[in-house]
């Protein structure tokens, strides 16, 4: 047990090395700081993909390791985006308002500036007053705290309610999905205080950094995303490597048995649920300034289910699997839906991938669930020749009956 953390987890080092090399490569190839081989928008896409990989790691922690299929983590992701978006939008609008008012004969009072910002931001929803939730929007520090605090508190309250009443399995999934739906419907209203279905926009313009071109800014955000992913990955690997990791895997495989052994199952689950929600919030706070806009449609339950799809395709129960899944599926998805994939002409019908990609994704997802429960990263097992018998049974699911059932059929 006295071996170091990294020695016990060689995959972490490999992952960090690959991520570092990738970051360097993108930096040198970027328009802003390198040779201009890849466009600024693609750098942004890659940066966004890294943040998606981060939330996939969080999802893998909570689903792959603890067996809680949460269909609400993208809501936490969106909330993180909203929190940082509030500051970005407020500060940026303030800059514009102050500039435009500087030419007035009489210098504006503070109240006049705030009123003008309110009119600018809330004009689209027919209001001009700041709702109470914008109270701290003028402070970057407080909004940064809220990026983790808001998803964290929501996850804490929801998780406490759900876990203490022993809601597990698919019931918990449906409940988290309902929570996500409730949140997105709430945000869709105009009087939710977050601009209804318009969402927060113009987030790509960072206040006080007007002189920095987007091409450079995109690389900075790429670095930040890579750093966040690296830290998140190491944190996740550290969490699952020790005794804590053993307990949560135990909860996944047989919750009742762990409870009888004297562990506070609810406490472990609640901690993991809350921490991953915070990670999701951070990922969102990095994603949306690169995307430029955050609106309630992003929070809709379907997004959280896609998150589960990425992790399942990548291979759940191992952290690099989640990263591979998120990166692979979201990049392929961008490629197909961006209209770059060549159409397939069948003679009688032309398959346009913009329309058919979702069908392909859905069916391949079914195929992965049926035929390759280990996902893409199952390839690494073949490659390393690792075929441990205890893993074989565990991946089939938390229900001890499942293995027997399958054997009986075969």
């Amino acid at each position, binding site marked *: 047990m006295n071996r170091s953390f990294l020695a016990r987890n060689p995959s972490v080092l490999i992952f960090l090395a690959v991520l570092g090399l990738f970051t360097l490569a993108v930096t040198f190839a970027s328009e802003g700081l390198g040779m201009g081989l890849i466009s600024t928008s693609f750098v942004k896409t890659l940066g966004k993909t890294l943040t998606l990989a981060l939330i996939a790691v969080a999802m893998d922690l909570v689903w792959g390791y603890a*067996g809680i*299929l949460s269909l609400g983590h993208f809501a936490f992701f969106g909330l993180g985006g909203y929190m940082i978006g509030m500051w970005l939008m407020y500060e940026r609008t303030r800059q514009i308002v102050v500039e435009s008012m500087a030419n*007035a*004969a*009489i*210098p*504006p*009072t*503070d*109240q006049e500036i705030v009123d003008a910002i309110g009119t600018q931001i809330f004009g689209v929803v027919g209001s001009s007053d700041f709702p109470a939730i914008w109270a701290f929007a003028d402070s970057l520090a407080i909004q940064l705290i809220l990026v983790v605090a808001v998803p964290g508190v929501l996850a804490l309250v*929801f998780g406490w*309610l*759900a876990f*203490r*009443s*022993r*809601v*597990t*399995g*698919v*019931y918990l*999934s*449906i*409940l988290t*999905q*309902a*929570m996500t*739906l*409730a*949140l997105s*419907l*709430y945000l*869709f*209203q105009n*009087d939710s205080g977050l601009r209804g279905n318009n969402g927060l926009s113009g987030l790509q313009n960072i206040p006080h950094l007007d002189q920095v071109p987007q091409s450079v800014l995109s690389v900075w955000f790429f670095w930040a995303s890579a750093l966040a992913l690296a830290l998140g990955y190491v944190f996740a690997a550290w969490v699952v490597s020790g005794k804590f990791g053993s307990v949560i895997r135990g909860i996944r495989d047989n919750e009742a048995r762990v409870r009888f052994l004297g562990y506070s199952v609810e406490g472990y689950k609640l901690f993991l649920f809350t921490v991953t929600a915070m990670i999701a919030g951070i990922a969102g706070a990095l994603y949306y300034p690169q995307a430029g806009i955050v609106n309630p449609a992003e929070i809709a*339950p*379907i997004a959280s*289910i896609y998150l*589960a*799809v990425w992790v*399942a395709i990548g291979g759940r129960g191992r952290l690099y699997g989640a990263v591979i899944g998120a990166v692979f599926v979201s990049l392929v998805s961008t490629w197909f839906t961006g209209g770059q994939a060549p159409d397939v002409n069948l003679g009688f019908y032309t398959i346009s991938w913009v*329309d*058919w990609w*979702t*069908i392909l*994704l*859905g*069916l*391949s*997802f*079914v195929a992965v*669930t*049926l035929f390759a*429960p280990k996902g893409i990263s199952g390839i690494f097992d073949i490659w390393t020749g690792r075929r441990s018998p205890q893993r074989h049974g565990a991946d*089939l*699911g*938390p*229900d001890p009956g*499942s293995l027997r*059932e399958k054997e009986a059929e075969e």
Partner: protein
Amino acid sequence: MLKRIFLTVLAAVLLASQAKAQDALGPMQTILQANAEIIVKSSRKTIQPAIDAVAGSGLPQAQSVLEAWQAKDMWRRKADGLFFRAEKADGGYRLIDFDSGEVVGVAEKGDLKQIKPNSGIRALIGTALVTFQLNDPDRVKREEALTSLERDANAALLEPLRASIEAEPDPDLKARKLRLERLLTISYDPDEATRIAAIEDMAGDLGVDVRAALNPLVATKLRVFEGTPPADVNVARLLKPGSDALPREEAYALLSDAGLAPPRVTPEAVRAALAEHIEGGTVAGVAVTALSDPAKRVEAYRALADRGLVPPYLAEDEISAALSAYSFAEVYAEPSPAVTDAAEAALARINTKVGLNQALDLGLDALSLGSIYFLAAIGLAITFGVMGVINMAHGEFIMMGAYTGYVVQQLIPNHTASIAVAIPLAFLVTFSAGVVLERLVIRHLYNRPLETLLATFGISIALQQLFKNIFGTQARPLTSPDWLGGAWVLNDVVSISYIRIAIFVLALLFLGLFLFIMKRTRLGLETRAVTQNPGMAAAMGINPGRVNMLTFGLGSGIAGIAGVAIGLFAKVTSELGADYIVQSFMTVVVGGVGNIWGTLLGAGLIGSLQKGIEWLNPSNTLAAQTYMIIFIIIFIQFRPRGIIALKGRAAGD
């Protein structure tokens, strides 16, 4: 030849009648001649005696005279000054005598003068005509007159209406006349006690017309009085400036608008005034850069005001002093306090009654929403509730059913026939889809619920996109047959559309069908056996694979029929099912998994909850869904296994 003879005869008749007319004028013509001067003058101010004379003549021809007059068909012959009704005819105008109703001849337009009453006079004539129309022997005419009276009444019509009630033979029309008489009495009767009596008569009535008659009585206007309001003003309530009903700014604006106080200097006005008086970087000795402070602004403005350059600045205490010198009151337009009190009391009683009826209406709405949720969830109650298979593609089966209905309607134009075909066809389509899904995917995933959830979700997004590719993103209509259009109206408040009743009935039918299949058929028995213990069931000779396949198909098929029903009142889109899936699962979970009565209760609970929240906050149906879901999450805290929880071994996960 013939024409000549005709003309000769005509001329003879004309001469004869003219002679007759000159000899002895008919009674109506006499009246008209007596009032000829004011009729020709055609002035709204002086015409009334002429109209009264005609209407009050008691002659049977009075009505036709008034009608001709109103329709500008009354002409006066210049030669002898007689009045006729005239119709356009060959060679001029055919003149018809009012008294005899006979054609007296044809005259050139130049020989005639048309009587052209203006709109004011025509309205007066119309009022006079109402009396005749209300007593017309033709029931249709009376009904028309009554309808127009109900739409647009005035004080003058009250008496003719009252006079016509006694003689009304038709009981329906008599009831309508009596009701209208009460309403007009409320609005127009000069006697206060009569009005109050009428108000009290109508106090329990739910009709919109009663409220329309009462509301103008209690309409108020905000007015300012120096000191206390005078005694002859009917005050609804006194308002204090600074209260919620009357903010200080508004109260003061009332004062300044009425010229009772100098206008308040707004911050915008201060700013504009300061900008005007900048001199070399300062305003009245205050540096411009310091003016971002509101206090400094006021200071600079006061300095300007002292120099007489701008109107004086009003401090808060000056405003308060001005406000305290006046009182503000909402004043009824109706002068009589007794009438307004009676009207307020009557409206309060009506509103209580309307409230109760609205609650009933809300209950019906909730029931129908509940039955929609029940329809959407009943298939899930089989696949999820009984079999324990979580099928996220259930919503897409609903959507497939709705599209089946749409396609059938394209092929069979008759809506009744197409629905009759669509329902079994939708069952067949989704039944097959369900069987295929079960055989290909779900069979391999029994006892792995999370994987089932994800795999069926993959199916769900694929199906949604597939239907989007086939039918486009545009919403498709699924039209209900005509006999399902319209609504069952109980009174002005409570009504329910037939289609919702049909869906309620359909939900009940499905409940019966479900119970029948599960409790009375071989399939239901086998399903329950396989669900409880598949190994034992297999040992008893039941083929679990076949039973699972059929049960899943049945649940999916019912979803298809639900899709047709839902498609009838919602537009058919590829997201149709996805909109219901979360609510459907909630319905099953809240009700209690594995119990159809629980699903029924769950649907009722969720439906009434959603309608109840919508009623509390009617502007916002999105918020209603949010609060409903939050409520469900809290509900599950207290009854984690739903309203009706299974006990014993069947309750195992």
